């Protein structure tokens, strides 16, 4: 059973912006866009590429390898070559602290 874990301060990630965080040996991309924070797996479902190194436009994150785009709010794959959503995790803010809870696998 995973718990919320503090990963960063609100001031660490501008809007729009992103940050790679490590929780329990897992890498997660923390994204700040449209005034809210989201967390998705650092894994493109097409080829396993590192999404955290991709370009963020609005709330869409593009894989640096082949350009597949993902909606960071839902994890949904928006364009080819990815067809499956990437994983998302719950985010909450307490004061100035951002906390993430890894989804149950």
């Amino acid at each position, binding site marked *: 059973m995973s718990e919320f874990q503090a990963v960063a301060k609100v001031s660490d990630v501008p809007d729009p912006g992103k940050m790679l965080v490590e929780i329990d040996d897992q890498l997660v991309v923390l994204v700040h866009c449209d005034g809210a924070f989201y967390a998705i797996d650092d894994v493109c479902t097409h080829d396993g590429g590192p999404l955290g190194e991709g370009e963020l436009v609005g709330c869409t994150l593009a894989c640096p390898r082949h350009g597949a785009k993902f909606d960071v709010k839902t994890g949904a794959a928006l364009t080819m070559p990815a067809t499956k959503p990437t994983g998302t995790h719950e985010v909450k803010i307490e004061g100035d602290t951002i906390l993430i809870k890894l989804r149950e*696998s």
Partner: protein
Amino acid sequence: MSVTTTAAGFTQESFDRFVAQRNEPEWLRELRREAWQKFESLPMPSQRDEEWMRTDIRTLRLEKFGFPSETIPTSGAAPHGLLTHGVELGGQTIAIDSRPHTARLNEKWAAKGVLFGSLDELVASHGEIVKKHLFRAFTPGYDRFAALHAAAWSGGTLLYVPRGVTVDEPFHMLSALNTGGVDMGHTLVILEDGAEATLLAETTSLVEGGTGLHVGGIELLVGPRARLRYVNFQNWSAGVWHFAHQKALVDSDASLQWTIAALGAKLAKVNQHVALTGPGATAQVNGVMFTEGKQHLAYNTLQHHEASQCRSDLLYKAALQDDSRTVWRGMIRVDEGAQKTDGYQRNDNLMLSEHSRSDSIPGLEILADDVRCTHGSTTGRVDDEQLFYARCRGLTRKEAVRMVVTGFFQQVFDRITIESVREALGLAIARRIREYE
């Protein structure tokens, strides 16, 4: 059980201390120092490298581990292996956290000139043989892990079979890890002309779910007309990082049967390389992988035909459940003079869950013009019709899935000629199959 490793990280200071602790000949110290320089200068592999593109090691913290220490475990019972049930052994080595624990060799084989035991200990007594062969099939500068292994190897096993000696009892080597432990075992197998032997190697963790680091190296030197059967069963717990460089040199008219089985490790990245160096050499390579949880097993295989009229046949089969992942990149390389080559490679993957993933990348690189080289790859799910049929015959769903998985692996089990290995692998896999809806 005494703790045998210190988490001092891999620093110049801890390296100097490690080398100073070991009473080794100067040539070996020099090899270690050269390799350490390479380790210091090489970058950590990253996903920008083609070979590591699908293997993410960004969460590996090498500083949490350290060089194997000289503290020899003196208490605690020897761990048990799975491969030797009912087998009369010619000898056995056990290492814990890369330090020798047990080494024994049947007198009758020792009398014929066979050497089998801890490589650490045999360097002292048979240094010339080790010096002649060490790193013939290992490249310390290949990548950062190879360099670390060459600098820090400890424990390990040497098997030397002199010319014409046939050993009809298998040898067994077991490497065990305490949680947080480090295994840097180096395996060196030397079969001289016409020798025959079987070596069963396996790994285990002493603590279920324990963490650890394995950075290993295996060299199999199969002389002319020699025959080697080698089984390597990786069965670490799911918290262990496993990096290995494994290579065989198979000389003229020699044969090698190499079986790799992998059920354990958090993440494994293995380079398995078979070089057929003399005319008429043959190699059969078998791979059995069963993964679960978030395991990631990546195998890079190379069948290198350097001489003419050689035959290589590789079959890797993997079944995946939960969120696990396997990567197989296989290459058959045929050199310009290697005419009449017969090379085959095949990889089959059985997906037992929706979120598992398997990447299968076969390849051929052929510079000769009179060869037969083929490859194949399949990836699929359990056939619902087969399950339905089996359930109509009174099996539960789990029993039916188990039967399908067993059938999937049967093709590779049929190629493994050692009964105790077939049985151990079959049982270990059957125990892991989950209930699926």
